[in-house]
C-alpha cells in the first residue's frame, strides 16, 4: 500500500473492548495486534470497562468495528446494554459488533438476534476474523 493510498480513502477503525469484571486480556491484545498488522486502526479500551464507557468510546471514535471480549459469562447483561447505548446515539446501524470469548452455544443465537454480527469462540483462526471484518464492515455514505 502506498502512502498516497493510505492518506486517502477509508481506513477501517476498530475498538477492542474489555467489558465487565474479567481480567483476561491476552485475547484482546492478540486480536488488537493482528488487526493492526492487517492494516486496521485499533483502539484498545483497557480492562474493566463499563458498557457506558464502551458506548462513549465507540461513538466518539466513530469505529467501524466494535469487538467485545467477554470471558466472565456476563455477556447476556453487558452486550444488550452496549447495543442499547449505540442505538441511543444512532451509532448502531453503522457499527459491526463482534463478540469474542466464552459464549455458550445457547446464547449465540440470542446475541446474533440482538444485532451482533458474529460470535467468535476460542481457537478461531485470526485470518477468519479479519476476513469477516473486511467482508462485513458496514457501508457508509
Amino acid at each position, binding site marked *: 500500500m502506498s502512502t498516497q493510498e*493510505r492518506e486517502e480513502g477509508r481506513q477501517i477503525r476498530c475498538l477492542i473492548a474489555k467489558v465487565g469484571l474479567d481480567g483476561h486480556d491476552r485475547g484482546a491484545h492478540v486480536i488488537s495486534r493482528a488487526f493492526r498488522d492487517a492494516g486496521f486502526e485499533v*483502539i*484498545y479500551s483497557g480492562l474493566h470497562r*463499563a458498557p457506558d464507557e464502551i458506548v462513549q468510546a465507540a461513538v466518539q471514535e466513530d469505529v467501524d468495528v466494535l469487538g467485545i471480549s467477554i470471558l466472565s459469562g456476563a455477556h447476556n447483561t453487558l452486550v444488550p446494554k452496549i447495543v442499547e447505548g449505540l442505538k441511543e446515539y444512532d451509532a448502531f446501524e453503522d457499527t459491526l459488533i463482534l463478540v469474542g470469548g466464552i459464549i455458550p452455544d445457547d446464547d449465540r443465537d440470542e446475541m446474533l438476534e440482538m444485532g451482533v454480527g458474529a460470535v467468535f469462540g476460542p481457537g478461531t483462526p485470526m485470518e477468519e476474523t479479519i476476513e469477516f471484518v473486511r467482508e462485513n464492515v458496514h457501508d457508509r455514505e
Partner: protein
Amino acid sequence: MTATGTESALVGDLLDGKHRALARVITKIENRSPGYRDIVSALHTHTGTADVIGITGSPGAGKSTLVDKLARTYRDRGETVGVIAVDPSSPYTGGAVLGDRIRMASNVGDMDVFFRSMSARGTLGGLSTATSDAVKALDAFGKDKVIIETVGAGQNEVDIVKTADTVCVLVQPGSGDDVQMLKAGILEIGDVFVVNKADMDGAERTVAELEEMIHMRENPAAGLNTGHHGPVDDEEMEQVALDDPDEEAWDPRVVETVATDATGVDDLIDTLDEHAAWLSETGRIDDRARTRYAEEIRQLIRADTARLLEEVIDARGGIDALADDVLSKETDPYSVADELVGPVRECVDEELER
C-alpha cells in the same frame, strides 16, 4: 464553497451539538472522503472560540495522563473539552494501535469530553492537515478547550506550533541528556514547560536546567556573572537584559506536575490561561492565526498540485515505467521532471502574462 446534501445535514447536526455528527465529520476529514472539503469550508466561519492547547514531549513523559487530568480539571471549572490524541501508524501496513484513550480514566462517561484517537497515517502532510481540520470541527462544535496530544518526540512535534495557540512541552526529571538533546528541537517551541513526575529524583535539577535554558535564550549574558571574571556590576547586566527590544515577549514558564494524582494541574491551567490572555492582549493570537492560515493555504496548494501531477504521471504510463526509462539510461530524473512539469509551467507563464 458551500456544502450540499448530506454534507450540509452533517454540518447542521454538528452545529446542533450531535456527537455522532462530530465523530463522523472527523472520520470524513481523516479519510479525505468526498465532500470533506465542503464540510471544513462550511465550518470555518463557526471557528475561533476555542483555546487550542498542544501537548508534546518524549514517549512516556506522561502526556496522556496529564491530558486526562487537564480535561477533568477544565470540566470541574465548567468548561467543555475536545481532545485529539495522535499515535504513530505502521509504515508497513498502515495499521495502528491507538492507546492514549486508556489513560482517560477521569473522564469516563462524560460526553462533554470528546476524545478522539488519531493515527498519524504516514507522515507526508496527512497528519497536520487532518489534525488541524479536526480541531476546527471541535472548535465549531463549541468546545471551550481543544487539547492536541502529539506522538512521542520526533519531527512532528514542531508541527504542533502550526496548529496550537499554546504549546506545552513535557519533560521528565532526570533526563539531563534529553534536555541537552531537545535544546535544538522542541524546547524552542514551548510556551510552557511542564516537568512531569515532579515527585521523582532529579526534578529540581531539571526545573533549574529548563529555567537556565529559557533565560539564556532571553538574555545570553545571564549566568556569566560567576565571579570568575571579577565583579560584573548589576547595571551592566540590566543593560544587557534591556537590550531585548520586545518588552511584550512571552516569558516561557516552567511548571511542575505529578499527572498521576493531578498535583500542579491547577497551576498549569492558570499558566495556560495567562498565556491565552497574553495572546489576546498583545494581538499575537491573530498573528498566529494568520501564520497558520498561510501555512494551511500553502499546504493545500502543494497537496493539490501534487495530486494533479500524479495524474500526469499516470497518464505517462505510471511512475514505474518512468523509473525504468531512467534505469535503462534512456533519460534521467531531471529530464523526466522537466517534461512532466512543463505543461504546468506553460499554464502558469500564460496566467502571469495576462
